[in-house]
């Protein structure tokens, strides 16, 4: 069993609030790992630290054998990321967005065109490569972002809520692209989502985070067994409670309403 991503006692504090509190986990090479949790649980903060956008207060991250803090550039070259919110230049064409990415990720010049073509063909956008991104629909933008994250042949792909706000057809097609990448290219997938049935359908391993700590992890079957529930959604609700959380913006002051910080109220 090979480990592509290893996280040791990772912690992030914002002033008086601890968003992520000493979490540790390993992700196996070639697996699909789902990282779940209610809003404000510490998911986005964790993914930001894993992708070197945010500096951890303490803890260690090893990606593809590289220390994400000390060998930042090597770690960065090892992963691809699709951010939760949009990150395309809409005044450029799809192809220009891809080319920009290929250059800043130092893809050799000779391979660039082929790789861009491959990636765009995977998500079915090659024919539309010359269009300005602002003309794209939400689903096409998402697919373009996935294609872009593939151009530098990452070993692990981070997907932060890749299907949020998309119609069922597009969600379906995005998941089938993702599964195919995983099965055919052996690419490790690390994803977050709020759609439990999606996580249940694709994930080999699951970790559930709440209040900055991992409260449960394992395969879907193991989690259902331990929580004595029928589906991942039920297990999730049983573990994290039914209270509605405050959504919050990482980086700003983060807090959930204290009265709601009870777990397992059912």
């Amino acid at each position, binding site marked *: 069993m090979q480990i592509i991503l290893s996280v040791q006692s990772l912690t992030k504090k914002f002033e008086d609030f601890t968003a992520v509190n000493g979490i540790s986990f390993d992700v196996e090479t070639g697996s699909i790992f789902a990282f779940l949790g209610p809003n404000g649980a510490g998911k986005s903060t964790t993914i930001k630290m894993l992708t070197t956008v945010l500096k951890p207060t303490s803890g260690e991250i090893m990606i593809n054998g590289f220390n994400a803090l000390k060998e930042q*550039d090597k770690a960065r070259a090892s992963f691809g990321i699709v*951010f939760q919110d949009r*990150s395309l230049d809409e005044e450029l064409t799809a192809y220009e967005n891809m080319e920009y990415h290929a250059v800043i990720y130092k893809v050799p*010049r000779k391979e660039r065109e082929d790789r861009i073509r491959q990636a765009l063909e995977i998500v079915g956008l090659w024919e539309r490569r010359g269009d300005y991104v602002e003309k794209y629909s939400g689903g096409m933008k998402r697919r373009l972002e996935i294609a872009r994250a593939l151009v530098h042949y990452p070993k692990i792909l981070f997907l932060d809520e890749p299907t949020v706000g998309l119609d069922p057809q597009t969600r379906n097609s995005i998941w089938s692209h993702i599964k195919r990448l995983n099965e055919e290219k052996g690419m490790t997938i690390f994803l977050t989502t709020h759609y439990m049935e999606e996580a249940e359908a694709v994930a080999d391993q699951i970790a559930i985070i709440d209040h900055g700590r991992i409260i449960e992890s394992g395969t879907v079957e193991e989690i259902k067994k331990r929580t004595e529930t029928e589906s991942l959604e039920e297990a999730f609700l049983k573990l994290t409670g039914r209270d509605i959380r405050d959504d919050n913006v990482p*980086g700003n002051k983060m807090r959930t309403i204290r009265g709601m910080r009870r777990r397992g109220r059912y």
Partner: protein
Amino acid sequence: MIEVIYILWLRQLKHYWRSKARLLGSLGQPVLFLVAFGFGFGPMYAKASGGENYMDFLAPGIVSMSILFTAIFSGLEVIWDRQFGFLKETFVAPISRAEIMLGKTLGGASIAMVQGLIVFCLTYVLGFRVPGLRSLGLGLIFMFLIAIFFTGFGLAIASKMKDMHGFQLIMNFLIMPIFFLSGALFPLENLPPAIYFLSRVNPLTYGVDGMRGAFTGISVFGIYNDLAIVGSLSALICMVGAVLFSKIEA
């Protein structure tokens, strides 16, 4: 490294070239200033200075103005990149922040330079003449340095801003004073001490003075002093910008 800088530069030029409205719109102000001030104050200036041509004085000032505004805007464009999420895409790539800073500075400065050259050609139409190739070359160097400095300055400011809310503040309390107290429109003589002091700590003052010296021979501080000051300030702002950039968390 060169390719990374090139693609960052190219992206900015594409934005500039594709936005024709912006291209044309940003020419409106310098043209208006040239015409209104040039013809409005021209006779007064001639009388006060004993027959000098105001256009000779004003043209380098207005060229500086258009470079100043274009450069600052290009620098501040990073704030849009941040709001539209594109900055993150650039920041998680395996490239250094210094490269990003350099690429963006050169991109913004090139746009400002193009804008400055367009205005420079317009001044020709209004009767402004440069004596020879040597003064033209020197003048172009000053234009480029002003462009570099203020793009870097805009980037440094942008690295500290989360969104465009502070834009008016920066425009009215920083950029407009820099412009008005630079000697672009009127000579910096017989001023009250406070204004005199402000004009002397204003980087644009030396840029305008140097460019005017190069193009027309009228210089207060001496062209080579101006060149040394503007040159070292440009290098300094690039370094400061690179440090500030390295601290941004996207």
